[in-house]
């Protein structure tokens, strides 16, 4: 018999779900607040938790990582009364098992509940992986934990993996981690950097060639596909693969057989494929620049790495790790770090992601030389300028609810449009200040703002803000 916990402030919803769970011969309990949920989860083990998004004391989605971290690691099904595809995506990315919308029907509760139980059973009976070797990847945020979970999943089977993420997010390190945690770890991990290969060389480098296959082929050569036999073939920046090669490579993926250039004989290679790209490969597929059939083959498992600007809670941890490592490498004493330095690291958007952060730290250490503390002045100039510009622009924007370029148009926008924009911008800034000032305390925010609880939550949702942002 499984145990379910229903977390919803609506008594009727709790009753409905309890009825469904009990009709399936399982046990159900319910609580009316997140605080109560936390206490109950800490003292009891549950298999499935139905969690409402909008609770009197906070957002269920914000609360999700805390539940997922519980040792019993229950499966969480998010419930909401609002049609919200972005919220659904956020819930799944934060570790929810599924997402159901109110009004609830018997079917909408029963199916995800039974699937969650089935998944949990299978997970329990599956052999537990030895702790994951993270290969120097630093991060503890829920988004990174989701990526590590995917690495563990990828390492336990042989499915093709597609790693997506902006430049500098660590795609190669994740590919290496998949390989090193898999049963193929003792064999070759073969990197194919598709951006480094001129189009004329791709085929012979991948497939190899026989002697005399083309001018200059004085000897036969084994290709990278053969070298990855038994191991992992890592196609980095796979979107750069020419279309003609995509077709040939698709056949290799399907049959694990290929023919070296100029050879009549087919060869076999039992490799596991991990591919990576920083491009929107789906959009390339729609433009006819990437084969649909190949994309479907590549993405049996997808690891989507977050950009650093969406993962700011990890910046300090990553920076400390690399400051220690770089100081060690450069033979320097570990330096202190000023609060302003940390603030600037947090304010900058890091378009080059972790790679750019490491380079900035390297620059800072080099600039600081023997000075004992790192200050913003030690960071590269373009970072300081960008942060200052954004800060000035923000202040300017705060003062002007519409932009000057709009005045220069032939027709001014309607006053209603300008007014709505001004109100929206002011409301958003006000709410940001409110949650910062109150440290995310909802009761206090209600008292100060004079808003009702439901109105406050509606506005927070409208501007994609969360009380937890004030608690950082």
């Amino acid at each position: 018999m499984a145990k379910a916990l229903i977390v919803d402030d609506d008594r009727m919803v709790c009753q409905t779900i309890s009825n469904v769970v009990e009709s399936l011969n399982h046990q159900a309990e319910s609580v009316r607040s997140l605080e109560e949920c936390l206490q109950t989860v800490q003292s009891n083990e549950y298999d499935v938790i139905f969690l409402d998004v909008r609770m009197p004391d906070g957002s269920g989605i914000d609360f999700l990582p805390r539940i997922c971290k519980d040792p019993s690691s229950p499966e969480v099904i998010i419930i909401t009364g609002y049609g919200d595809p972005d919220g659904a995506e956020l819930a799944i990315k934060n570790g929810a098992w599924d997402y159901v919308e109110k009004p609830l029907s018997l079917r909408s509760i029963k199916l995800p509940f039974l699937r969650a139980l089935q998944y949990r059973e299978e997970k329990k009976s599956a052999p537990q992986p030895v702790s994951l070797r993270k290969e120097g990847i630093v991060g503890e945020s829920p988004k990174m934990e989701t990526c590590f979970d995917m690495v563990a999943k990828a390492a336990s089977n042989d499915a093709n993996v597609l790693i997506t993420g902006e430049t500098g997010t660590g795609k190669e390190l994740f590919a290496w981690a998949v390989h090193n945690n898999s049963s193929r770890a003792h064999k070759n991990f073969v990197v194919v950097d598709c951006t480094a290969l001129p189009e004329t060389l791709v085929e012979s480098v991948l497939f190899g060639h026989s002697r005399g296959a083309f001018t200059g082929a004085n000897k036969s050569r084994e290709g990278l596909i053969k070298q990855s036999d038994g191991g992992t073939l890592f196609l980095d920046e796979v979107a750069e693969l020419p279309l003609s090669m995509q077709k040939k490579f698709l056949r290799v993926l399907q049959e694990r057989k290929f023919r070296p250039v100029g050879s009549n004989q087919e060869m076999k290679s039992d490799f596991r494929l991990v591919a990576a790209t920083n491009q929107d490969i789906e959009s390339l597929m729609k433009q006819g620049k990437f084969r649909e059939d190949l994309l479907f083959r590549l993405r049996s498992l997808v690891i989507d790495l977050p950009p650093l600007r969406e993962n700011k809670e990890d910046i300090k941890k990553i920076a400390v790790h690399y400051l220690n490592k770089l100081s060690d490498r450069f033979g320097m004493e570990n330096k202190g770090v000023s609060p302003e330095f940390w603030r600037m690291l947090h304010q900058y958007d890091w378009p080059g992601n972790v790679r750019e952060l490491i380079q900035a730290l390297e620059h800072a250490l080099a600039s600081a030389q023997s000075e004992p503390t790192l200050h913003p002045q030690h960071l590269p100039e373009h970072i300081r300028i960008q942060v200052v510009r954004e800060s000035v622009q923000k202040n300017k924007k705060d003062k002007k609810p519409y932009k000057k370029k709009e005045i220069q148009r032939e027709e001014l926008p309607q006053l209603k449009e300008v007014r709505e924009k001004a109100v929206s911008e002011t409301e958003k800034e006000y709410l940001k200040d409110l949650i910062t000032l109150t440290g995310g305390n909802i009761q206090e925010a209600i008292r100060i703002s004079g808003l009702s609880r439901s109105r406050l939550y509606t506005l927070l949702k409208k501007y994609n803000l969360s009380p937890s942002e004030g608690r950082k």
Partner: protein
Amino acid sequence: MVYNYPEKESWRVYHMKLLLYASTTQPPWKKIQEYVKKRVSYKNLELYQTIEALKQRLCQPKEEMFVGFLLVSDREGLLDILSLRQLFLDIPTILIIPDKEKETIALAHRFRPNFLGFKDDEPEKISQVLEKMLG
């Protein structure tokens, strides 16, 4: 040690600098080395001939972006280079190895080079890859 020789007008200007490691000047290593040097201005080239000198350079902060070009003449040299792998984390690298033995290739892949070549590869081919990497 920084390689020093006169500037030529025909050299291309690249966005990245080249970090060339070559512990031997024996043919055919010399041929590849000369081929590379002809394509990169000395201002964009740093040449190291011992593993200690290379390590010393990598243990200093670098203000520019580098591409590594490592010519390894034997398996022992390959092991030396492997010991520096952590220092190459952000340096895209071409690794040229001495033979096509399975063990040598396996060791070379542990370095995770962006391009793996062999000493008897056509220098023209290696040069095409290098030019693409230097941008």
